[in-house]
């Protein structure tokens, strides 16, 4: 390994039988020729072979700037710039914040030792040098260095891969262009609010344009969370788009077929709750089928009572041959339709004596909608209520899909 910091994927701690620490680059800083030679000989004898030498503080800093060592062995008493100052300057530079610096010192008073630590020393080696002590301290700090670098590489790689996967996930969701085309063809505004409990999530939603100004909309909530749930959500997304051309306008048959295919695809313990429905503006209705989903909500114009649809049904992916019923909700001009994942229901279902059985959710949603007023932005008041209920770290994935019909028919 040369002095260039290791890149992602270069995480080999051992090459053959030789520990990775043997290849580390060590800079020995001492104004006395004899001390430099002695330390160099001890390190070479112990198997270290990439050693450089500096004869004072200025020399040390310029060598470090040219090539960052893995460890610095530093003398304190030097003419010009002493070891304390070298330490302070290194620590002032973010690039060297975690560079291990071993200070060799004859200083025995605790004041001086504290001064060394205060200026940023990692550890002390007492003078006169003891071979065993020197090598033990060099090894332990190099091992830490190698382990931390290895973890940093691993972390950077995982973060990069998760960011890429997250962007793939974002691309599965309806694009602005698709939303604009639905505004034209079906006269609806589509909005959504998504909060994931980790980098990846098991919630996914989408729209399937149909003929006659109609379109299908689905919201799928994979059991579990994180990467494993996201992988399954990707598989289900593919299935849904395969079924769309043939079964897209029949929600009950759509779910039954999706379930049969999911059963062969998913392992035991993996399943999904799904709602799939068709928004038909001309007929003024939303026809859907549900598999253990949350009740779809219709907010009618002019302050009429909220409508919650039934969403009972066997989750998708457990047993083959399930039948699902088609249900219908009115969806007149000016109405809003909300689909939401189970996480949203749980989050807004707290408080009150009936918390936990869904009653509190209905009440909390009604309160948020009436707070917005008939022409107000109920989507905004709902997402605000959700954010307030969840705090900083949501315990589950949350998706709220909001479909708003213009008043003009």
């Amino acid at each position: 390994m040369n002095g260039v910091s290791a890149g992602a994927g270069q995480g080999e701690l051992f090459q053959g039988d030789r520990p990775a620490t043997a290849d580390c680059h060590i800079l020995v800083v001492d104004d006395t020729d004899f001390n430099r030679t002695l330390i160099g000989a001890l390190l070479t004898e112990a198997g270290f072979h990439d050693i450089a030498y500096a004869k004072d503080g200025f020399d040390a800093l310029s060598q470090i700037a040219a090539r960052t060592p893995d460890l610095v062995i530093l003398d304190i008493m030097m003419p010009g710039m002493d070891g304390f100052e070298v330490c302070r300057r290194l620590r002032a530079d973010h690039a060297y914040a975690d560079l291990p610096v071993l200070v060799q010192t004859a200083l025995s008073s605790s004041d001086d030792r504290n001064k060394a630590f205060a200026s940023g020393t990692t550890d002390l080696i007492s003078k006169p040098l003891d071979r065993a002590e020197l090598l033990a301290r060099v090894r332990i700090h190099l091992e830490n260095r190698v382990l931390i670098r290895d973890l940093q590489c691993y972390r950077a790689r995982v973060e990069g891969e998760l960011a890429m996967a997250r962007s793939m996930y974002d691309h599965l969701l309806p694009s602005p262009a698709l939303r604009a085309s639905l505004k034209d063809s079906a006269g609806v505004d589509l909005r959504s609010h998504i909060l994931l409990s980790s980098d990846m999530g098991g919630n996914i939603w989408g729209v399937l344009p149909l003929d006659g100004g109609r379109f299908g909309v689905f919201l799928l909530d994979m059991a579990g969370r994180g990467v494993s749930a996201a992988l399954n959500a990707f598989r289900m997304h593919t299935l849904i788009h395969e079924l769309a051309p043939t079964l897209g306008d029949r929600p009950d048959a759509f779910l039954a077929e999706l379930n049969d295919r999911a059963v062969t695809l998913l392992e035991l313990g993996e399943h999904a709750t799904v709602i799939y429905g068709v928004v038909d503006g001309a007929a003024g209705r939303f026809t859907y089928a549900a598999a253990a989903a949350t009740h779809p909500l219709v907010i009618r114009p002019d302050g009429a009572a909220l409508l919650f649809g039934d969403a009972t049904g066997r989750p998708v992916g457990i047993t083959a041959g399930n039948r699902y019923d088609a249900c219908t909700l009115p969806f007149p001009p000016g109405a809003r339709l909300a689909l939401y994942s189970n996480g949203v229901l749980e989050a807004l279902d707290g408080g009150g004596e009936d918390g936990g059985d869904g009653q509190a959710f209905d009440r909390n949603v009604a309160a948020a909608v009436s707070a917005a007023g008939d022409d107000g932005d109920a989507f905004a008041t709902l997402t605000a209520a959700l954010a307030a209920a969840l705090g900083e770290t949501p315990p589950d994935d949350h998706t709220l899909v909001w479909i708003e019909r213009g008043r003009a028919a």
Partner: protein
Amino acid sequence: MDYGIEDKDQETVVRLRGRLTFNDHGKLRALIREMLQTKAKRQVLDLSALEFVDSAGIGMLLIAREEMSNVDKLLILRAAAGQVKRVLTVAQLNKIVAIED
């Protein structure tokens, strides 16, 4: 989630307490192993003190059902209340696993 096991002649009763979620995967695996060790054919999960179950928790209950049925045991979910009862009802799990009040 916490649990206590009571081994009777006719049935093993496991009382689950607290919240059964994604994080309890290891614990439920251990519980399933314990249940497989007991003699009774009827393996009852008493859910009366279980406050909350998420979708991953439901998945684990289905795994337990399968593991019991593989060795000719019967898993029974008993006395679910509140959120747990609602989730079991919405998912119509009574057709897949035995549910008692």
